[in-house]
């Protein structure tokens, strides 16, 4: 029943209803068979996951603030606890996809961005290219078998990130995190429909006077052409660990190649000058 003219799909993560249960983190780990990567106690509210990584494709952030949840003086307290489930943004203009030298990263028929694990050679270029710090190399062992002679490594060595449950989408199911979310904070669907739903939700929250409510990554005109997975936040993006104005680095690549052409010509001119500049 696969059709190849799919609508672009994505996530709308509405943080105003997130309760920080981390069911998304767990469901993601279970469905995608992501290895356990140790337990650390960060001391940062209820967040002991820390960040998205090769072994964490959903990450719930917790922020404790001395700020009222609403601004219309309805008697709410001056404290609020922000919770937000972070994930790969599946950007319209994805830097990871652009810079991948092997073509391991590709755009699926669903408009999502996925790493082909049989192609990735672990060059790591996508890791610093991502403006959100989503991609990471997995250092855990890939198998218990001995690595290939001479050139092999014990560690997995490939780059991993959220696939937006490509396998589940192929089978007509929603991604594991959205399925597991008990409050519909994580909503899966056609991107156009999610954007309309988010606009309605934002209008409602603004009428109710929610402090700082805004959409992040909904705008198709932003630096990455809009996110495939966008958010409703209650404070500035950087408070949740997001970049406030992400821009895909390859937007400036033509300009960089022109700079390189100038520099390359200068190398030739410099060498020539070294021969012409000597005593005759």
């Amino acid at each position, binding site marked *: 029943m696969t059709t190849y003219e799919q609508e672009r799909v994505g996530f709308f993560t509405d943080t105003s209803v997130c309760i920080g249960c981390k069911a998304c983190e767990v469901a993601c780990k279970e469905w995608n068979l992501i290895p356990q990567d140790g337990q650390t106690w960060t001391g940062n509210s209820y967040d002991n996951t820390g960040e998205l990584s090769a072994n964490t494709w959903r990450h719930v952030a917790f922020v404790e603030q001395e700020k009222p949840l609403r601004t219309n003086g309805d008697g709410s307290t001056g404290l609020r606890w922000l919770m937000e489930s972070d994930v790969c943004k599946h950007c319209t203009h994805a830097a990871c996809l652009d*810079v991948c030298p092997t073509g391991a990263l590709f755009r699926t028929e669903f408009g999502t961005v996925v790493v082909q694990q049989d192609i990735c050679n672990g060059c*790591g*270029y996508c890791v610093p290219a*991502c403006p959100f710090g989503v991609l990471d190399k997995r250092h855990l062992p890939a198998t218990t078998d001995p690595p290939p002679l001479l050139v092999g490594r014990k560690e997995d*060595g490939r780059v991993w990130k959220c696939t937006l449950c490509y396998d589940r989408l192929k089978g007509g199911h929603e991604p594991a995190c959205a399925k597991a979310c008990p409050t519909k904070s994580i909503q899966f669907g056609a991107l156009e429909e999610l954007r309309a739903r988010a606009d309605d939700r934002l209008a409602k929250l603004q009428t109710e006077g929610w402090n700082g409510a805004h959409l992040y990554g909904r705008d198709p005109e932003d630096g990455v052409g809009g996110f495939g997975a966008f958010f409703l936040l209650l404070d500035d993006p*950087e408070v949740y660990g997001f970049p406030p104005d992400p821009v895909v680095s390859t937007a400036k690549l033509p300009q*960089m190649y022109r700079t390189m052409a100038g*520099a390359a010509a200068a*190398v030739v001119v410099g060498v020539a000058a070294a021969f012409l500049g000597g005593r005759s």
Partner: protein
Amino acid sequence: MSENGYRSYYGRPVIKEPVWTWEIPTYFFTGGLAGASSVLSLAAKIARKEKLSRTALYLGAAADAVSPVLLVSDLGRPERFHHMLRVFKVTSPMNVGAWILLVSGGASNTAALLELLGWLKPVKLAAEAVAALAGPSLATYTGVLVADTAIPVWHEGRHELPWIFGASAAASAGAAACMFLPPEDAGPARRLAIGAVAAEGSLMQGMELRLGEVGEVYRQGGAGRLAWAAKTLAGTGAVLLARRGGRSRKAAALGGALVCAGELCLRWSVYRAGFQSARDPKYTVKPQRERLQVSSGG
């Protein structure tokens, strides 16, 4: 979440540090040396300086041969290195670079081998020409490679980095040739090294000034120490080459070695600066927040 001019999530980085290891900055040096040496070799051939031409050819070929080994060794899956060559992809400076290195390394090593054996002179000349054509790109693309990332000190340095890497490559090629030649045969190589060290010094200074707060990592921590070492070593080497390199073979060898060490430190400094820039959310958040305030007229 301190409000010292910017906000963050528990002071955590917004972007990831590179996962590259020591092979990559070392390759930036060897690749630059290879690319500029191929140009130097052909130019010397045209100027009928056979000794300089041959020395630069061998140096370039050796650096070209080491480079892919370093790059493959850095991969998470080294046995899949050839996946780089399953596509040609201009949006990926790394992919473009892999093809440049393949052409340049193949040509310079063919030329060096034929030179050594004294065989097939026309083929050797063609190979030298190909290596010299690919050389300037090999010497400068790595500047684009690091600039095409989300790392503030690299991405914002995109106007200077290819020039700095090109100058560094020219300096190391000239200096390396000085190390292996009698002073009377190394004149152009010496002038190239001295001129390129001067150019690179002012380019680095200019970039640091233009970058403002983002550029301060070049004065801090490991990147700062390496930047200082690069300036000191290359500067001392260039002065030594200028004052004594034309007369004393020992001074030329020492001066050349100092410049090469300085250029290696320079590549390492740029590399470490990227890690420091990624680690502190200040460098990611502050410029972006300022950009938003300007665009909203606030």
